[in-house]
């Protein structure tokens, strides 16, 4: 038997899905989803490598306290994926270290 989803459990009626890109790949997103929710829905759990050891990180606290889920959105690094709502056309990219190296700053 297919397991039910959280959207089904809450009887959600989300609007028309839109597209964002994750490291250039087109990915479906729903209105109301944060960037973190879009990434989790796509099966992605890490989207940052740390400044020191380059270890992968993703969501930890989920409420904006820990800053582990930092991500680059539309070339702006260090956004907390758990807080930022996804918008149509967003370019979400994996963040390496401080997120500034790739931007040449």
């Amino acid at each position, binding site marked *: 038997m297919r397991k*039910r989803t959280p959207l089904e*459990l*809450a009887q959600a009626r989300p609007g028309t899905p839109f597209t964002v890109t994750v490291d250039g790949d087109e990915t479906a997103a729903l209105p*109301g989803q944060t960037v973190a929710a879009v990434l989790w829905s796509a099966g992605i759990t890490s989207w940052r490598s740390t400044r020191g050891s380059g270890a992968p990180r993703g969501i930890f*606290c*989920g*409420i*904006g*306290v*820990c800053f582990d889920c930092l991500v680059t959105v539309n070339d702006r690094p260090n956004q907390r994926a758990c807080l930022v709502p996804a918008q149509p056309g967003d370019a979400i990219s994996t963040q390496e270290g401080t997120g500034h190296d790739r931007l040449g700053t």
Partner: protein
Amino acid sequence: MTDSEPEQDGRSPLLQGRGAVSICGSAAGRDQPRHSRSRSTSASLAIVGAGPAGLAAALTAADLGVRVVLLDSGAQAGGQFYRQPAAEFKARRPQALHHAWRTWTKLRDRLAAHVEAGRITHLADRHVWFVEGEFGGVGRFGVHALLGPAQAESETVTADAVLLATGGYEKVLPFPGWTLPGVVTAGGAQAMLKGGLVLPGRTAVVAGTGPLLMPVAAGLAAAGAEVAAYVESTHPADFVRHTATLAANPAKVAEAAQYAAQLLRHKVPVTVRHTVVAAHGTDRVEAVTVAALDPEGRVRPGTERRIACDTLAVGHGMLAHTDLAETLGCAIDATGDPFVVTDAEQRTDVDGVWAAGEATGIGGAVLALAEGEIAGYSIAARLGGVEPRPADWAPAARTRARLRRFFAAFDSAYAPPAHWVEQVTDDTVVCRCEEVTAAEVREAVGELGATDVRTVKLLTRAGMGWCQGRVCAVGVAGVAGCSVGSAKRAFARPVPLGVLAEEPRC
């Protein structure tokens, strides 16, 4: 680092305290005209936090004629306990993920009526970073908040009284593998589920200690995840000595029984007096090792068992958000996990500042509602220049007394394993932001002579990162063998330098 980036490591002189803020004048006007991005609103009462405590206080005070501005970081009111699915989901049955839904709908409807009537201004998406007293003659307090997810602009609310209902966040003690993606706080898994209607993976282990784990495990299972194990480090027998407290709180017992029945229905294997000793994986968690605890809280050698999973939701209790109170100079009790000290009216020891809910000691939503209501009565009376009458809030005071006794008993029963530090291997990262290992912390104590968390921080950078030690302080203190103490952070959130440069008092 650039000046438009949120403060990253606490080294900037601008984060060292108010005395240094005057230098921000040199940055003002470089990018934007002064005050161009600052807005201002005024109120008799500013409330920080629209969770149960803040809502109860706002409604009570507004009922009594006080003009209230309610600032909250969420897009919708409710806080963490009543976190709602994003409005765009148009969920017809959000209560499927909630407890005490009817209490919420009453709060929500009363708030809507007050907002409609103009008695409460609800400012959503406001991240309060600083509350200052003696604010420029406009009002007694200035409450500064960053706007929206971008957090590049600040807004100031002035008020004659302030209620801090800043809530709490989860305590997680370090263990090998806890930085792997897929290891999330139990509350984080719940927040993502309630707010984003999304799951972290297919197969979860829920582990740690405390009353939050049960609803998290039940919620994940109901939403379609397989909960491969529910691992609680305490044992139901630990509660037996608190029989009288349990008998006085039948609603709490019924709540636990309800969650237990849900776990049974979803066939969640429940293991007590066990702990997760390690999470395994390379790019994400693939399994955890669970082991039995002896009555002293030590891992029993040879009892280790590996459980495959793609998610570990873990938590060891809750911590109070005390930053705003600390910068206002309010007394903090830091003998254990720090909390804001309040009197019978929920007043702090700073004139004009009240506090309620988890910020004043962890005790759950019902206690927060009672404390918020009491604060609302007290504030309304004192703003009106009259002595409050405790008889007005007698039922709430009785609830408060009963639940504080209950949570004191909870606290002693739901404690993390006494010897958890022994499981923290030298190569375990303790400070997640700065990637400081347990070995570095131990070296700071054993070889360099550090005897407190602050010295450990100066020697190792543990606690200097993005989260400013909010996540790691308890872990660092445990590994270092000292108390957590009071953090004294200058600001409650990272603040862009451009915002400081524009503050009206610079």
